[in-house]
């Protein structure tokens, strides 16, 4: 009885809970979210729960991997942040794809094209830009379905090419597919069934039929790697690997797809870190002399030689390594690295000719394979794994050092041999060939502010809050919506954000907690300063006693306001040059005034703590603040006063109803 994952379970399974889950697909989809930002993590988690998914969260990539490894079939999809302190998100992406073969969605606040491209090339099935909206998360199940569908298609193709078809496998895939994609995939699976109905013979092979996706444990993977290495990359065909591994229940197709991913992974490993070229060099150091004359050979030539049997596979790899090590003096990114990625893109584009599929990609990945596992095949599996691990560590280090400015970026600027590109291009390669011609320093930073024009302009206006400060403060009434340039972000946010439905029902409602009605900017015309007056009139609370206390407070407050106006002005001026210190007025103002009020209102005293905290950061401590502006919203725009700017915005005179 198989206990593996829900979505992959068989219809005939006795896992009743999973059957229930299947019926409700995509509800119950098991999602793992990885993000070091706790705010975002919590929000995404909540959103996913709202979509009726089962969510597990991790704030570190390592723990995510551990969870995945511990619970192989426990997840259907992974969502990961790109920038994480302990491991690059792309690295995690690869690891997951390799080890667990789960669909991975990347997310980031970074929407730069290069980064998104990187996600695509690393095999992410989607890339979400933060802030994430719930609508984007609702549809992630499609990636689960799509991935499975593609996997089976691949396997079927190779199967049919190979040996006329393993019908067990096909049927298994069919059933599996339909069971996991009830609502959407049924029509597809039934179509498939029709096509292969006649081929469907034996249902009784329970081991293949009932087995879901193979779990590539660490041991299994090591066995695999050992087998591959033993065979040599040229000859590492799934059938032979399978034989060598001698794992019961493992099928050729499992091995085939895993091999594919492995090559992909290795290619990246060798391609990504700059100094891996150095590693290669040192690895092959002892063979320098022997191979030096060959350094002029291009990767393609080497391959051709190997194919022609002129070079033994191992030699080929070392030659390649040497040529790699030599061919890029500066960046350490040998051209063939690019080439390999293209070759591996080959795999992605399903350039398969049965066993022949292993030829070129094999050759291309030769050097990584052998680099990783040592030149001689006499290394023990453990050592191989260690090497592998150390490579990964190197990659990780490199990656973590320059997550976005990785040599992947540089790669684009490395010379790109026209002959190779043509050769590869002619085979219909996808855009993985496009050199990423970015200057080194730009990495991820560039995209963030080239794309959203609206944001750029609003941020531009933010740099000069002095512009909108005085405008807002100058007008005594709350500025009518839309007219003052002082509210740039609002108008510009229009296009992208106004689609969000306004919870207008919440207006004045008292359901549950009081959620104030939120109005879209366009709805806010009603908001006029005279509203405040009306409300004041409406308050029935004006007992003389209270009034006097209020007045008392007021009298205390008023001079404070004035003082504060002056003092903060001087503070501001003095602090304008103060670098990161000081001029932080707003928060402390608000905090402090509310603490003034606290004594009479018994509001929570947390603000006091906050104030003191801020004192730690900021030396200036302000006595008061016109909290009134906070509530009344007359002068809110005064808020972010630029320290360089004059204090006028805070002048008491401007405050009025």
């Amino acid at each position, binding site marked *: 009885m198989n206990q593996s994952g829900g979505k992959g379970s068989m219809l005939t399974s006795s896992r009743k809970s999973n059957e229930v889950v299947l019926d409700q697909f995509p509800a119950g989809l098991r999602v793992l979210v990885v993000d070091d930002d*706790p*705010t975002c993590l919590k*929000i995404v988690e*909540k*959103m996913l729960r709202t979509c009726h998914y089962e969510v597990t969260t991790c704030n570190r990539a390592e723990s995510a991997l551990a969870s995945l490894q511990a619970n192989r079939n426990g997840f259907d999809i992974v969502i990961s*942040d790109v920038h994480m302190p302990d491991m690059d998100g792309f690295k995690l992406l690869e690891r997951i794809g390799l080890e667990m073969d789960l669909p991975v969605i990347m997310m*980031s*606040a970074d929407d730069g094209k290069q980064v998104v491209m990187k996600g695509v090339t690393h095999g992410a099935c989607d890339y979400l830009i933060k*802030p994430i909206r719930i609508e984007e998360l609702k549809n992630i199940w499609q990636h689960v379905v799509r991935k499975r569908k593609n996997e089976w298609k691949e396997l079927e193709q190779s199967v049919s090419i190979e040996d006329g078809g393993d019908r067990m496998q096909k049927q298994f895939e069919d059933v599996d597919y339909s069971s996991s994609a009830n609502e959407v995939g049924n029509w597809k699976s039934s179509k498939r069934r029709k096509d292969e109905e006649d081929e469907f013979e034996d249902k009784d092979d329970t081991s293949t039929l009932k087995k879901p996706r193979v779990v590539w444990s660490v041991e299994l993977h090591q066995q695999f790697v050992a087998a591959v290495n033993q065979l040599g990359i040229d000859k590492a065909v799934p059938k032979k690997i399978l034989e060598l591994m001698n794992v019961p229940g493992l099928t050729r197709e499992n091995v085939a797809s895993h091999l594919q991913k492995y090559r992909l992974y290795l290619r990246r490993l060798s391609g990504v870190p700059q100094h891996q070229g150095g590693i290669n060099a040192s690895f092959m150091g002892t063979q320098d002399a022997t191979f030096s004359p060959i350094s002029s050979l291009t990767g393609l030539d080497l391959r051709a030689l190997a194919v022609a049997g002129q070079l033994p596979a191992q030699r080929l790899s070392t030659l390649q390594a040497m040529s790699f090590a030599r061919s890029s003096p500066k960046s350490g990114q040998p051209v063939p690295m690019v080439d390999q990625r293209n070759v591996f893109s080959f795999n992605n584009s399903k350039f398969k000719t049965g066993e022949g599929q292993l030829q070129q990609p094999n050759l291309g990945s030769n050097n990584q394979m052998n680099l990783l596992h040592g030149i001689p095949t006499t290394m023990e599996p453990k050592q191989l794994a260690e090497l592998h691990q150390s490579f990964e560590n190197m990659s990780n280090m490199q990656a973590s050092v320059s997550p976005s*400015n990785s040599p992947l970026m540089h790669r684009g600027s490395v010379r790109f041999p026209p002959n190779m590109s043509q050769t590869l291009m002619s085979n219909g390669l996808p855009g993985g060939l496009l050199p990423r011609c970015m200057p080194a*320093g730009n990495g*991820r*930073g560039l995209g*963030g*502010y080239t794309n959203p024009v609206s944001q750029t302009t*609003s941020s531009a206006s*933010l740099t000069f809050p002095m512009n909108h400060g005085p405008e807002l403060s100058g007008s005594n009434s709350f500025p009518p*919506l839309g007219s003052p340039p002082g*509210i740039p*972000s*609002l108008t510009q*946010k229009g296009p992208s*954000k106004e689609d*969000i439905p306004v*919870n207008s029902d919440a207006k004045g409602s008292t359901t*549950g*907690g*009081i959620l*104030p009605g*939120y109005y879209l900017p366009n709805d*806010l015309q009603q908001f006029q300063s005279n*509203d405040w007056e009306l*409300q*004041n009139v*409406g*308050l*029935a*609370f004006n007992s003389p006693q*209270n009034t006097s206390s*209020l007045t008392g407070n007021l009298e205390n*407050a008023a001079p404070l306001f004035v003082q504060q106006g002056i003092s903060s002005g001087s503070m501001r001026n003095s602090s304008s040059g103060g*670098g*990161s210190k000081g*001029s932080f*007025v707003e928060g402390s103002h*608000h905090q402090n005034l509310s603490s003034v009020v606290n004594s009479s*209102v*018994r509001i*929570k005293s*947390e603000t006091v703590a*906050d104030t003191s905290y801020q004192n730690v950061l900021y030396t200036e401590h302000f006595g008061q603040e016109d909290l009134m502006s*906070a*509530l009344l919203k*007359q002068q*809110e725009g005064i*808020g*972010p006063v630029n320290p*360089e700017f004059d204090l006028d915005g805070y002048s008491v005179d401007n*405050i009025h*109803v």
Partner: protein
Amino acid sequence: MELGLMQRRLEDYTKSLFMEGLLDAQFLQLQQLQDESNPGFVGEVVSLFFDDSEKLLNELTSAMDQQIVDFRKVDSYVHQFKGSSSSIGAQRIKNVCILFRKYIEEQNIEACLRCLQQVKQEYYHVKSKLETLFRVTSLLNPIVLKENLKHPLGTDSLSNLCQWLDYFANTSLLL
């Protein structure tokens, strides 16, 4: 007690936060996520954001304080801040972060320092606004209200709230 009025005032207050661009539609998303099963969701998220941001700002400050500024590190902090602030809908902070990153790329230290100041300003600004919002919201919460109505007028938090709100209204009038 003019509960409806106070609610209205609270709504207007919130509205104004949007108007000013302090908050954007992402905050609406958060609000929509909040429900009976998790009534404090927005507050929790925002608290998380505050805690995280304080740390981040500290680190950012010290990174900028170095003799030789490690721009990459600074960039990663700013990027992180951009992500978290955009996640809760703190639009202005996000916008400053975007600008900040531009200056980081140019390695313009002066401009970066200004941005740092600015981002802090924006942060504390929105923080205080949100804190006010949550405080008042919790005071106006019907459950709280029900409790308070049991007590004599003079001491319940509701009347204090009215007092408080009125105080501010009046101060503006008087000035």
